[in-house]
């Protein structure tokens, strides 16, 4: 149960491993509901692994982890309908149109019917609404991935390198996605190397290196 005043994310000494290799080595993070937080750090620091732990796709090996009031050590999937993780994969079917893909995700998430139209409008996908996902350029595929995340109306939006693969004009669309989530009161955690674009969007920054949080800005 997610009570008022409960942090959206509360990790204490969290350790996570992939094939026995520790990718997170004692992470402490607390994020309040409605906050927009940037996770930065060098390649291999554990940024994406941190997002995967929050999404429930990577198990917590040690430590305490609560996301949206849900204990990830007890059940790492129980909160997933309230979390949208936009990774480098678009989670779309190549043979289906953009609109059809978004409708599938909206139906799976029990999102309101207008969510698809709103996401397509925000990401400026109306011109390619009936184009098969497999025929889209890399940039439009990234927009699709963002639209999937937006369509779900999640309480926690996790964005992994949202600016990657987007042209300068399209990068501005990420601002709109984050802004929409902020307006709804959702919590946003974004990982980005493009600090000039990302920093103006966030309330604060967490720096990760070697699987640990090394600085809070």
């Amino acid at each position, binding site marked *: 149960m997610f009570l008022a005043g409960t942090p959206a994310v509360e990790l204490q000494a969290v350790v996570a491993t992939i094939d026995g290799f520790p990718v997170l080595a004692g992470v402490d993070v607390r994020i309040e509901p409605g906050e927009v937080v940037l996770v930065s750090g060098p390649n291999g620091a554990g940024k994406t692994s941190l997002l995967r732990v929050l999404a429930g796709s990577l198990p917590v090996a040690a430590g305490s982890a609560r996301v949206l009031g849900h204990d990830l050590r007890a059940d790492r999937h129980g909160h997933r309908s309230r*979390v949208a993780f936009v990774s480098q994969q678009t*989670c779309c*079917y190549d043979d289906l149109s953009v609109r059809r893909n978004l409708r599938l995700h909206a139906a799976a998430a*029990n999102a309101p019917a207008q969510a698809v139209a709103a996401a397509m409008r925000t990401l400026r996908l109306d011109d390619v609404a009936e184009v098969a996902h497999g025929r889209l350029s890399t940039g439009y595929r990234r927009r699709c991935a963002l639209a999937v995340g937006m369509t*779900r109306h999640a309480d926690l939006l996790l964005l992994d390198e949202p600016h990657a693969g987007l042209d300068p004009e399209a990068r501005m669309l990420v601002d709109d996605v984050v802004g929409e989530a902020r307006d709804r009161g959702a919590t946003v955690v974004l990982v980005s190397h493009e600090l000039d674009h990302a920093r103006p969007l966030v309330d604060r920054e967490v720096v990760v290196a070697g699987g640990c949080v090394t600085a809070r800005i």
Partner: protein
Amino acid sequence: MLAQALVIAGKDLEIEWRSRATAVRVVPFAGVLVLLFAIALDPDRGVLPRVAPGLFWLAVVLAGLLAIGRAVAVERDNDAGAGLVASGLDPAAMFLGKAAAIAVELLALEALVAAAMAALYDVGVAATDAWLLVATSALATAGIAAAGTLYGAVAGGDRSHDSLLAVLLLPVLLPVVLAGTRLFEAATQGDAAGGDIAWLGLLAVFAALYGGVGALAFGPLLEEG
């Protein structure tokens, strides 16, 4: 869950309709198998009508592997299947929907293979025995689709998933091939009423078993894949 399963089945059939991937690969492959069997066993020797039931299920299972592999591949590409489950879709609904779509494709395949064999192998079924063909096809197809969807998810995470799927699935489908062959023999020999109907029970148990296990295991398999 049923509504979500219907959404997934509709999605898979729409993907097949748009891509025609199964139609352009599976159907010709099944046709070649039927033709090769006929040439290898020499139509003039009168062997074909007797072995047609077994050849039918071999052709369906081998060609069906391609359809199942394709159904697995669309979920793996772009992490689409895992993404839908992450969106809140019930994994059991995804399993049932995918199995239903595969079953529809297999039934269409079986109709084409049966038509080809009737023309090439000189086999037929009396109207009074047709019920056994229909019942056998329905139960065997449900079993093949359920087991194929489950083992497709097992093999999905492996790089050599196509060959792994064949290695895993073909031995598992042995009871279906055996029961399907026995029942089709009874139907084509005009002995539907006197045939060993217990084989139908085996097909029903097989379909129910893999349907139940698949619905429970599909979510964790998708996550790990």
